[in-house]
């Protein structure tokens, strides 16, 4: 039976959530297909397992291994091969957790495919696909992450035996963090500095066996293990790897691009831009993850807030739903709007990637640098905001959000490393800034730029007539998304210009370009953020016209306005200082944000229902679709490991002896 509060909420919605689900999935057929795939997992008893919250790390790892193995078998059994369908199936299998085989499928196999020669692919791929070989990708070292040139692991070619000798010369050079390395894998692709004929040729990739096939014992010369407990990722055996004069045959270097001949002659690669493509793709996935993780957190927090009653709004009346408090709406609804916004950004990035990689196979790489530079910032922008947003959702659930039964702590700890992996966020922001400053310089020298940065072309005009900037306020209409896109555009161009000018100022004062860059980096990050913010508002606004159902379009327009106006209200300084908005308009923005909260309120539950997360996928007692929270919290708690016996053994071991002595 559905909780009456939630039933009322669902009845009162002004639109059909199912239609919005279709928009999110990219069409009704895709929604149907997704649900079919999810049902395969849901209805399969083999995928059932105990609540992970009550298991030790070792048990969680074991469950994950079992499920990963099962998943591989079932995918083959069902003949699921489409990447999206595999993604749906995997998400349903693993829920919020990660799989120890992720790196095998996500990095080991693709790297061999992309960087191996025909011979290498023929040798290794059948073994990897048959899972006789399980591999991982070992790049990061204990002392080195972002800066790849700093990696210390060496691979020295010995022409006498035609082998590479791998070494971890220092503690800091120990490979550290690779997923699946600690316990699962028997091979790894190791990135190491290649030395041949006495010269260092930079980083290259080598296939290194690390464990004995059959016994799974580490090979002589290999020290390998798990790096210990982490904030999250309990089921992942992130590992360390230390190599001491470990020899592999010459053929184990991936040689599609660079080569080492038998005599030790090094042959340089032709083009290294290609790796950009993979990075763009992974970033688009992280942006999508930002949207999904935040959507899950919003689903839980909003459903719970509709069921939870607290205090009084009107003296003498029953306690209201906490979702009726303006402060609660103000915490949650802007995040709900953000989740939708990021969803559309992720979809856009994926489409763009597919379009451009189409070009790659035909040899047109011209758009790749821009895409690479701009997606870096979007990865950072969305993951930072989603990261903070998930925690806000958790805190908005008060004490119960702190319990693992809410599912929220797990969503947070699983998501938060995305601010670090695949490019630390601040470094990513600075990459985007570098591109923006370059574009600015181009515009300054009279050339036009295109794409998402074309707004910089307007700057030359502004410089001639500074009065125009001051005259802008009258042109912003705070109820018109298109006008708000313009406001964000002006803010971005202003901050890019300010950062570029400050950088120039620093350059005039000192010799070192790097010093000047470092001293401007706070400004540069702000410029990048403003640019990304503009892109998100622009893409959300653009999406509105594609929605055919009027009721859905109406609510999405309100959400889009809320997203844009709330963003302004949190950065009023930029809009005021830039003369983009007046004091009076800023006051109106504050009021309009509150008015929009009231518009969203009756539709809030329907808006999270549209994300269409199945209960078992959500993994939250507070976020259950039926809203029967309290009885299920009690049922859940009874299974806690501390409740295994009525009297805990600590009583006999510690408490009783203490009392006896008194």
């Amino acid at each position, binding site marked *: 039976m559905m909780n009456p509060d939630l039933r009322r909420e669902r009845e009162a919605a002004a639109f059909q959530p199912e239609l919005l689900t279709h928009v999110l999935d990219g069409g009704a057929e895709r929604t149907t297909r997704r649900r079919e795939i999810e049902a395969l997992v849901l209805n399969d008893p083999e995928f059932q397992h105990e609540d992970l919250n009550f298991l030790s790390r070792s048990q969680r790892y074991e469950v994950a291994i079992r499920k990963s193995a099962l998943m591989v078998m079932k995918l083959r059994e069902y003949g699921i091969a489409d990447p999206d369908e595999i993604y749906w199936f995997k998400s349903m299998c693993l829920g919020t957790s990660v799989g120890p085989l992720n790196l095998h499928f996500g990095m080991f196999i693709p790297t061999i495919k992309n960087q191996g020669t025909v011979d290498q692919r023929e040798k290794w791929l059948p073994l990897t696909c048959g899972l006789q070989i399980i591999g991982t990708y070992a790049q990061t070292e204990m002392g080195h992450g972002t800066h790849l040139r700093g990696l210390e692991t060496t691979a020295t070619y010995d022409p006498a035996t035609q082998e590479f000798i791998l070494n971890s010369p220092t503690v800091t050079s120990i490979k550290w963090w690779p997923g699946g390395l600690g316990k699962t894998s028997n091979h790894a692709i190791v990135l190491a500095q290649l030395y041949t004929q006495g010269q260092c040729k930079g980083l290259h990739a080598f296939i290194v066996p690390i464990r004995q096939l059959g016994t799974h014992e580490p090979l002589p010369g290999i020290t390998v293990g798990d790096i210990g407990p982490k904030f999250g990722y309990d089921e992942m055996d992130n590992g360390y790897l230390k190599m001491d004069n470990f020899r592999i045959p010459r053929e184990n270097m991936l040689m599609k691009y660079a080569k080492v001949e038998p005599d030790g002659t090094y042959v340089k690669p032709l083009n290294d831009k290609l790796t950009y493509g993979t990075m763009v793709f992974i970033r688009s996935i992280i942006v999508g993850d930002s949207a999904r993780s935040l959507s899950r957190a919003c689903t839980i927090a909003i459903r719970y807030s509709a069921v939870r009653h607290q205090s009084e709004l009107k003296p003498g009346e029953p306690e209201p739903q906490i979702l009726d408090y303006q402060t609660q709406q103000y915490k949650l609804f802007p995040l709900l709007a953000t989740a939708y916004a990021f969803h559309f950004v992720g979809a856009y990035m994926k489409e763009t990637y597919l379009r451009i990689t189409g070009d790659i196979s035909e040899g047109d790489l011209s758009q790749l640098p821009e895409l690479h530079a701009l997606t870096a910032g979007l990865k950072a922008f969305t993951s930072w905001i989603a990261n903070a947003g998930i925690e806000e959702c958790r805190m908005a659930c008060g004490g119960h959000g702190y319990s*693992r039964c809410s599912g929220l702590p797990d969503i947070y700890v699983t998501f938060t490393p995305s601010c670090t992996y695949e490019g630390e966020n601040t470094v990513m922001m600075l990459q985007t800034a570098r591109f923006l400053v370059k574009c600015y310089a181009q515009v300054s020298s009279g050339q036009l730029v295109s794409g998402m940065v074309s707004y910089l072309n307007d700057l030359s005009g502004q410089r001639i007539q500074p009065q125009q900037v001051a005259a802008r306020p009258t042109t912003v209409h705070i109820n018109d998304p298109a006008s708000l896109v313009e406001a964000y555009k002006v803010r971005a161009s202003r901050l890019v210009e300010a950062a570029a000018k400050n950088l120039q100022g620093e350059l005039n004062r000192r010799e070192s370009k790097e010093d000047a860059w*470092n001293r401007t980096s706070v400004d540069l990050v702000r410029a990048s953020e403003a640019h990304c913010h503009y892109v998100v508002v622009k893409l959300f606004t653009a999406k509105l016209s594609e929605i055919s159902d009027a009721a859905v379009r109406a609510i999405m327009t309100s959400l889009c306005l809320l997203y844009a106006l709330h963003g302004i209200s949190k950065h009023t300084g930029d809009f005021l200082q830039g003369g983009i908005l007046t004091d009076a308009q800023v006051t109106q923005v504050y009021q309009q944000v509150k008015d929009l909260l009231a518009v969203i309120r009756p539709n809030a539950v329907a808006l999270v229902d549209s994300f269409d997360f199945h209960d078992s996928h959500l993994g939250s007692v507070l976020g259950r679709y039926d809203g029967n929270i309290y009885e299920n919290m009690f049922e859940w708690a009874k299974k806690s490991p501390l409740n295994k016996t009525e009297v805990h053994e600590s009583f006999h071991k510690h408490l009783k002896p203490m009392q006896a002595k008194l």
Partner: protein
Amino acid sequence: MAPTRYLRSSASRDVNPDLDIERKTPSFDVEKLTTILDGGAENTRVRRAVEAVIHSDPVFSREDKYFLSQNESYEAAVKKAVHLKKMMHQMKWSWAGPESKYCNRALGGEVAFTLHTVFMESILALSTDEQTAKWIPLAENYRILGSYAQTELGHGTYIRGFETTATFNISTQEFVLNTPKISAMKWWPGELGRSATHTVVFAQLYIKGKCYGVHPFIVQIRSLHDHSPAPGVTVGDIGPKMDFNHNDNGYLLLQDVRVPRENMLSRFCEVLADGTYVKRGSEKINYFNMIIIRVKMLSNEVVPTLMKACIIAIRYSVVRRQSELKPGDQEAKILDYQTQQQKLLPVLATAYAFHFMNEYTNELFSKGYREIKQKNFDSLPELHAFSSGLKAIVTEHSTAGVETCRKACGGHGYSLLSGLPSLYTRLAASCTYEGENTVLLLQTARFLVKCLGAAHSGQPVPPSVAYLSAVNSERCLVRDKRDFLQPDVYVEAYRHVAIRVLSSAAAKLQALVQSGAEQHEAWHQCTVQLVHAAKAHCHYHVVKSFAEAVEKLGQEAGIQRIMKHLCGLFALHGIFSNTGDFLHDGYISGDQVDMMTASYLDLLAIVRKDAVPLVDAFDFTDETLNSALGSYDGHVYQRLYQWARKSPSNTKQANQAYENYLKPLFQNGLSKL
């Protein structure tokens, strides 16, 4: 600097040269600053003596902390608490003395029986003399173990909403306690799940069918012989949480549980034998005791946690090297990047700001306490409003600050061995317990709106809001970026914003009422704005108290200089992060914002030089930090490697999952080849 200090826990260690060099030329006397933070050299001495005792005792070792299951954490906390009790007895340290506080600091709070103390405190505060005489000796001698059961599954902040009932039965002279429905179950009380034998239950009192509101009752929940639940009692652990897994937060379901009439704590209200309800005395003193818990929690729990996070992140940031600042040079220390400084140094400044804020608050409360003892309750509303808002912003900023530190350590910050995730997960709970932050801020706002009205009509207002009576300044007069380093300038800017934001919320409130809205509805419509006003008020006070504390450091020129920089950094960071608040009515111009930003960035570079001495001055031992990244000697990587190898996940090279699943998988794979 006293070299002996470093010998305590870093004896004969070689220090990583990258960290060592940071300590060569501090601009101030580090040891002296430590004693200032401790409140005097004698306190520093006592603290170190306590730490030496605790750290030399293997029972208190926290080495395996990160590898424990929920059950093991709980057991370890109980074991340590029992041992600590014994040791304090031997050392003749009192629970009320400073040693107890320092023990807790050294052990990172991971000991049981903290709720037992709350149980005793609540009895002392709420009971009659006879009740105190009966229960306190039992509790002091650990004949009974107590808990404090207030929050229910469906009810937290709003005490009037509690559903647990205590019905007086005249014929048996007993109260009958009941949990009428599932949402009424007591839920969350610490040490209730497995340890406690007794608890103070808050329940709606019913006499002859009439409800008299929520009252406290002592209820025995477990047998004193075999620890099994008492008749009518269902009790257990609420399951794993984000942290506090050493604490058995529990649930409690009562079915016709009878307690004698004497078990209602009756200092303020009593039920006579014939069922007459008698109220006596003022509950205000009790109220005072409740708010003082908030204040203590900030200085004993919250701010030290923030300090520890700063130590770990800043020491790691001078050991970690990444990328090149100059081509061909060695990779740079990550603390030399402006973006890293901008993450960590404002957090460091915040830790100092909150430390001095706490000192100010403690003085305020000591004064209040003296007045209240003389039955003068005039300052109570102010103390309540002040502590509510302060608790909210200190916990919010500290929690966010710790997480900033964790993320600033990149991948290694994600490892539990860094110590940072646990600091965060513990502190995150403080935003909810002892008053949910948004609720507290609105309480402060209610007080502020009232005081603003009083100030406008010329009535006297309490000291912390006296500034509302003054005429608000219209323009910031700064002409040069250096002017922004003057405390007068930024304190005034914060004052201006606090008045403006509050005034505009109050005006809006009044406009709504005048246009016909009911008072409560108007209030509801303005809550987002009111929260903003309460935060601005608190932020102003933190800046102001920091600036005043710096003033008082006159005799210590070096320390005063660096503290002034930190104070400026804290203040300007706040302006930099919220320029809109300052620009809004033209108080600060766009040009002035640029000057302020320039000054702010200059301060980052200045504070950078003393960053390591500034965290060293917090003087937390390696054992207390329990961090592979933050140790005094800076041997980050060796320690990370050693600790990881001790992980239980590495005990057997061939693990079970391999035998059970991987091996069949490989074979299956082979068979399909």
